[in-house]
């Protein structure tokens, strides 16, 4: 038997489907015993990746698709968000985006450029592939304690 369960959801690259994908992911994450806070992190990180595909991957008329794949292990979830639109250079982009710092003058604050940073901060492992579109791989581990609690809940 495979050591994990695989669930996939495919949605049109449109804003109205980001919430549906987020709902599906949070439903899945709760099945393997993530804490409330960790599920909130997973919701944000995956929404950021899906939102990027909605906003940057395709031209308006394209009508592209986003594939969200989730591999569920007893102690972790791997989420893959893939589009087949424009590529971009992840390492180069990372230099230009990221958190704000205190010294910045308000009038020069960026409006945006937090998505990739949030994904990297909220997930335990992140990889980005950019060939024929963009694929973001992200992993989050269930806290030790939670795994035990969860096993208890299931067996009781």
């Amino acid at each position, binding site marked *: 038997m495979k050591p994990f369960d695989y669930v996939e959801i495919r949605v049109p690259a449109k804003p109205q489907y980001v*919430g549906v994908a987020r709902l599906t992911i949070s439903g899945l994450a709760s099945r393997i015993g993530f804490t409330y806070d960790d599920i909130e992190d997973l919701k944000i990180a995956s*929404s950021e990746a899906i939102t990027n595909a909605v906003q940057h991957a395709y031209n308006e008329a394209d009508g592209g698709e986003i594939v969200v794949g989730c591999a569920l292990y007893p102690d972790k979830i791997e989420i893959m968000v893939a589009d087949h639109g424009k590529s971009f250079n992840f390492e180069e982009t990372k230099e230009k985006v990221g*958190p704000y*710092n205190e010294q*910045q003058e308000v009038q020069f604050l960026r409006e*945006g450029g937090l998505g990739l940073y*949030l994904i990297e*901060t909220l997930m335990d492992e992140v990889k980005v592939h950019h060939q024929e579109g963009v694929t973001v791989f992200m992993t989050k581990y269930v806290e030790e304690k939670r795994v035990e609690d969860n096993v208890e809940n299931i067996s009781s």
Partner: protein
Amino acid sequence: MSEYKKWKKFMNGVYLMNIEVVLKEEENFLKAFIGGEIDVLTAPILREKLTSVQLKEGMHAELNLSDVSYMDSTGLGVIVAFFKNINAKNGHVKLTGLSARLKRLFDITGLGEIMDIETDVKVEKNYETI
């Protein structure tokens, strides 16, 4: 429960097109109550509401986020834009009613140090004053 109420409750339950923005403008003060989920679908609604505000010199604005159940970078972007606009007019923006989770989002992104944020931590505060 009426059909509509049930419907609304359901819609909220599944987190779809779930945003509410109520503005109260009075002289130099603006208070905005924001509720629901702020994501790529709903952030434009928030942006539209906030840009509808007539900006005044030295304005005091409060964004009450106590009913926000979900927010990501799309919401941060809208709030930063509003903050910049008010700031350009020498005004002040205060964010109130943030849950610990929401506060964390501002802190991680560095906005916690830049903006005036009031957390909704009644319980913890009580403990401190005892």
